[in-house]
């Protein structure tokens, strides 16, 4: 299957209007440029009318004004590392990139917090405050590449969100440009801003409400002590039991990640971190706090691991070893390419007490569809990432992948899970929304969205199902929006 972008370029004069604001170099409307901006980190492909590289709030506002007058759809884009197609433009939409808005504007070590532009990369923000003994807590696996703007849009999570909470717990305020170009400031460093608290609505808005042009983010003091452990298990079941029992003993580790044997093999191939290649599963557990606290937590975690039947306990001896173990974990998605050229995954969340049974169910689904599935996920909060490895050039295999994806989502919902833990709904899970919400719920969400975007121009046809055919797979060919392929 090959996708040819539709050649319905924007109306004459539109690019010229954008060029009057941004200059020639920052308005990209060549055919190859449009092909490149039609994708993000997901497997969906859309069609981009023009890509804009804005540098200031004023430029964003002026460009949004043009789109408003012309009635053009707009898709905001950060680093484009998202996995659910949130930054994939449909119908020749305008892609508004904030990748050049990457200044850390102000650091207040007293709160502590920082005002940053949306293009600042997650890990660059931490690097900018390291000298103050601070860091930005949410740490998606793509943290070296993903932007704060994208993190805010998807309400991103990460391994360390088990104890510290996801993005919404770390955003104190935002500046947002509304679809008509109006600039709005919401919240700020004050603990309880007056009026309705809209921050929780904007965070996770997935680009459907406006373009966030500044964020005030909470910074977190670096823990005085940290310890990272690797437990090696002969069965996934034993690893799953260990996760439940550690937390049941009152220890909430900073992070608790599970990798299964196929994932271990792929990650080890890239990093050479010394992961045990004969293990059925490993748990990467990190505890932090005061030195005494860390000792106590480590003792309990190791006790529980032994009781659950761990074959080996490895404790990182120094910062270098700790960094290597985390590199192995955070390279997981890319490392899958060593097995097959593409991957597909859902980041459903299930109650952690149901982990063992859902892992068995996922294995059975993969076997039924004759597919290879690899697991690496935030076990502590039950946030799954079953990666199905495949080759998109094989159309029959792609069909089986989509069917298996749907079965996995349904299995998760059936044990009391939710659709997504951190990646967002985007395009990929849009038509699954009906599995979690009734008509009334969806209608209420659509109205809240319209309060910000009455004309429905912001990231159109994302997040909420377009038709009443809820529950139908987005990647089923019949319900594919025109201009999309997988």
């Amino acid at each position, binding site marked *: 299957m090959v996708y040819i972008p539709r050649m319905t370029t924007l109306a004459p004069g539109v690019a010229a209007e954008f060029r009057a604001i941004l200059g020639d170099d920052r308005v990209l409307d060549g055919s190859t440029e449009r092909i490149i901006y039609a994708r993000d980190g997901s497997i969906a492909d859309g069609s981009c009318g023009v890509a804009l590289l804005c540098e200031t709030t004023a430029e964003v506002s002026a460009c949004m004004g043009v789109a408003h007058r012309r009635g053009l759809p707009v898709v905001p884009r950060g680093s484009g590392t998202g996995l659910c197609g949130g930054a994939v433009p449909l119908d020749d939409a305008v892609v508004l990139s904030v990748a050049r808005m990457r200044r850390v504007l102000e650091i207040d070590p007293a709160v502590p917090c920082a005002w940053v532009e949306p293009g600042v990369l997650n890990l660059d923000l931490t690097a900018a405050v390291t000298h103050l003994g601070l860091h930005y807590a949410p740490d998606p696996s793509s943290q070296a590449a993903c932007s704060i703007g994208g993190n805010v849009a998807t309400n991103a999570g990460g391994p360390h969100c088990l104890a510290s909470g996801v993005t919404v717990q770390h955003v104190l305020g935002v500046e947002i440009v509304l679809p008509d170009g109006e600039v709005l400031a919401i919240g700020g460093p004050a603990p309880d801003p007056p009026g309705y608290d809209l921050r929780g609505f904007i965070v996770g808005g997935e680009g459907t409400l406006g373009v966030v042009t500044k964020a005030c983010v909470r910074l977190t003091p670096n823990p005085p002590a940290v310890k990272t452990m690797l437990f090696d298990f002969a069965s996934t079941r034993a690893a799953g039991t260990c996760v439940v029992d550690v937390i049941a003993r009152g220890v909430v580790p900073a992070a608790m990640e599970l990798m299964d044997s196929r994932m271990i093999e792929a990650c080890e191939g890239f990093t050479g971190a010394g992961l045990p290649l004969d293990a059925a599963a490993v748990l990467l557990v990190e505890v932090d706090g005061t030195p005494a606290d860390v000792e106590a937590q480590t003792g309990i975690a190791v006790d529980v691991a032994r009781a659950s039947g761990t074959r080996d306990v490895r404790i990182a001896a120094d910062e270098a070893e700790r960094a290597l173990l985390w590199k192995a974990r955070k390279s997981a998605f890319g490392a899958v390419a060593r097995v097959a*050229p593409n991957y597909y995954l859902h980041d459903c969340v299930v109650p952690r007490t149901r982990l063992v049974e859902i892992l068995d169910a996922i294995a059975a689904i993969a076997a039924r569809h004759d597919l290879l599935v690899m697991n690496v996920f935030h076990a502590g909060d039950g946030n799954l990432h079953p990666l199905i490895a495949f080759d998109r050039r094989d159309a029959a295999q792609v069909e089986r992948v989509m069917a298996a994806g749907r079965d996995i989502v349904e299995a998760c919902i059936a044990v009391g899970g939710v659709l997504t833990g951190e990646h967002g709904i985007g395009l990929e899970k849009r038509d699954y929304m009906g599995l979690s919400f009734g008509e009334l719920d969806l209608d209420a969400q659509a109205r809240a969205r319209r309060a910000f975007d009455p004309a429905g121009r912001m990231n159109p046809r994302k997040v909420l199902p377009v038709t009443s055919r809820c529950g139908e797979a987005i990647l089923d060919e019949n319900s594919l929006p025109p201009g999309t392929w997988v």
Partner: protein
Amino acid sequence: MDASTTSGGARWLPGAPAPAEDDIVKCVACGLCLPHCPTFRLTGRETAAPRGRVAAMRAVQEGRAGVDGAFAAMMDECLACRACETACPSGVPYGRMIEAARAQVEVTRPVRVRGLRGLALGQVMSRTWAMRAMAVGLGVTQALRIDRLLPERMTAGAPRVSLPRLARRMPVRLGSGPVAAVLRGCVMDVAFRPVQEATMRAVAACGHTAVMPDGGCCGALAAHYGHPQAARRMARARIAEFEALGAEAVVVNSAGCSAHMKQWGHLLADDPAWAGRAHAMAARVRDVLELDVPSEATTTRPVAVHDACHHVNGQGIRAETRRMVAASGARPVEIPDDGRCCGAAGMYSVLQPEMSAELRLSKARAIAASGADTVACANPGCAAQIAAGLREIGADVDVRHPVELLRPRERT
């Protein structure tokens, strides 16, 4: 599905190698390369990022785009520093993909431009006498300061040529023991004579007879700039020469060359008469940094360490650079910029002067901020670029190859 969906064949041009489909599909578009790409860092533009360039290659492969001006501009803008390759968890072999993409682009250039580039990369560089003649010309213009009449953008990255050094005779055989060939090279031969001599001494100190044959260029630049035919010709000539010497090892003191020569097996894989010989010779190639040279301490001062991209990314040489600096007694100091490319990148400083100048200045400022009065740099392009940058910001920092810092002694 849309009616516009059709299947189309790849639109690569005949007459030049093309990026392999199996390499292209390895990219899962995760974006982890973005922060490591110097041109993406400067522009924030996806078309200046490895992921975007691979997407452009994919578009040609799938028949959705051609090898046109836009494609050429994107490939030309790449430094080919291969930092993305090191960062890539999927193992996308970007280095050989960009080389092939550039060979494609070269086919589209006007005959005159292509001919001129072919002449410079394939004919001039491969002839030692021609390089020397050029160097004398450059040295004279620099001595008479005529070069200052040319636009800054053309001269900033050019190495300084010393005429007296060029006239002096070089030792071409030194030491005793099994023979190790030392690559004479092209630019190194005319502009970095002290490094050549220091390399000979280092090889001899390691218990080898260091022999420098007459032949020049290894073909790296020709390969990087879309002239694989010329690169293969030069590789064959060098291999035959090293074989005739009975060389047990081939020692190279320029990062771009050692990285390229280690890939000779891949370059000549389709040439049945040479594939085996190329593979065997590539296995004998050592960058001089990889030698553990016994040395007296010559200094105790701090020396900033610049990593050439083709050391770190092509060959995984990083600790070795620091080891050699430390062997001289100096204290290796890190340059506070995450090892970003200096913008020299072969002919990049001439072909993409704006981007190159930004990278040059930021590298020079970072070196100055390190507080060291010497920077160790093991690649001729980087050395010339960094020296120019330091002159531009008025920083008094000496640029030296790590091997120059050594005072080799006999191994006991």
